[in-house]
């Protein structure tokens, strides 16, 4: 039961909800909206690699790959050596300026204990942040492309659909 989080760039509008809610919870955001050279706003956050280099270089085992999927860290083992910061191809691990230890996205470890998805996923207004079992998250994106090619799926935003909340 490995959990993944991916961003559907077809849906993302760069509203910064993920970045700002992460900043609210962790005082320094672990997801950041960065414009590409074409100006597309992309949320950059830990990709929780299958073979994470940050884990390989960590001399104390503070950074580890959780059985659940996410790359997480143990604060009490971290020496603040910054090897992980240099090793990550995306520059994701960060040093907490106040305490000097490493910090990164852990897909909301505290919340996962209560079986809750990460906060950025919960507050994403567009549904671009997807989280769940690999098949359940990646499946729809993959079949979307196939659907377009075979003509079984037509892009439609359902403008006529009445809100479910309607009433009174």
């Amino acid at each position, binding site marked *: 039961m490995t959990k993944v989080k991916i961003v559907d760039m077809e849906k993302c*509008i*760069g*509203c*910064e*909800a*993920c*970045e*700002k*809610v992460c*900043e*609210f919870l962790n005082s320094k955001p672990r997801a950041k*909206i960065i*414009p590409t050279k*074409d*100006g*597309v*706003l992309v949320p950059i956050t830990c990709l929780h690699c299958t073979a994470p280099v940050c884990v390989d270089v960590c001399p104390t085992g503070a950074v580890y790959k959780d059985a659940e999927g996410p790359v997480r860290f143990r604060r009490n083992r971290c020496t603040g050596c910054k090897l992980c910061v240099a090793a990550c191809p995306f520059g994701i691990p960060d040093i907490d300026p106040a305490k000097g230890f490493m910090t990164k996205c852990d897909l909301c470890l505290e919340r996962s204990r*209560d*079986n*809750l998805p990460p*906060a950025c996923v*919960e*507050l*994403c*207004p*567009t*549904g671009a942040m997807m989280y769940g079992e690999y098949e359940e998250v990646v499946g729809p994106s993959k079949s979307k492309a196939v659907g377009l090619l075979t003509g079984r799926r037509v892009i439609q*935003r*359902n*403008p006529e*659909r*009445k*809100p*479910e*909340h*309607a009433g*009174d």
Partner: protein
Amino acid sequence: MRFAFMCKKEKPDQRVNKRVAIIGAGPSGLAAAGYLACKGYGITLYERLPFPGGIMVFGIPESRIPRNRVLLGCKELEEIFDVEIKTSCKVAVDGVKILGDDFTKETVGLQKVVDEFDATVIATGTWNSRSLPAEGSSFKGIYSALEYLFRSKAHELGLMPEKEKIKLGSNVAVIGSGLVAVDAALEAVREGHSVKLISIENGLDAPSGSYEINRLKRRGVSHTERAVIRRVLGEGKVESIEVISVSAEVKGGVVLKMEQIPGTERIIDGVDNIIVGIGQIPTPPFGKDFQEIRTLRWGGIEVNGKFMSSKDKVFATGDVATGVSKVGRALQTGLKTATWVDRCLQGTA
């Protein structure tokens, strides 16, 4: 969107015997409501429009934010956390007019709400639009970008008959390059109009970002950059416009310096409508001469580091306190304000 993301999908065990009123059910109001509901407070949200969601439901096009995600989050607040969402109910000092007031069925005085609740949070946003700083700006055929988007959204939601939508002619000039202007331009293109975008910013320093401007261009929008409208020409109705090139210094989407270049005036003929999207103005629930809550020069509510206004028990959050921002920042200020409301009511602030 789970506004009550701070807790599980069940009512908190501990209830706090205190009630908080939140005026405005937009991103910041809903985020504050969700946080405080998780802490066990009794929450009443006042929303002057028929649905909660604010700008996410009544301004931002459906192609960007699907309203059902927003409305489902509101439904969870109501059904699981007993948040009372009073729609079509406006809280304001008498006589304050804001875009979309036609949908208000009931108005409650601000003081009455402040007296009734242990704390009041004002999250009314920025619903007024800056008007065109040009000669002839009162001509017929000139609309604000937000009003155009609002009416088309209200129609989409089945709240407004087709005839009350803004009807544009075939040639439309959209002024500005922020997200509101871009969305209005996209909507006009979608309706089949020929759109010209005119802005001080160029494609690279536009506040909406170069991607959005290029996307508009790909849809056939022509972009006149580094230019402003000097005069609107016509007989009481827009017929053509006179634009002038400018030299400008823009940083972070903000125009720092601007100068008109003499001799570059030119007239663009055959403009049927002008849509103005050059900035939003805060809409606190009181007028300019209301003394009890201090406002700043740009119209926003003055708050301290704890998001408290100058009036006892009254907080302000979201764009009405911080100025125009993206959805993310409004959500964050809503959450931060909620933490201070909680601490103040617990006596730990």
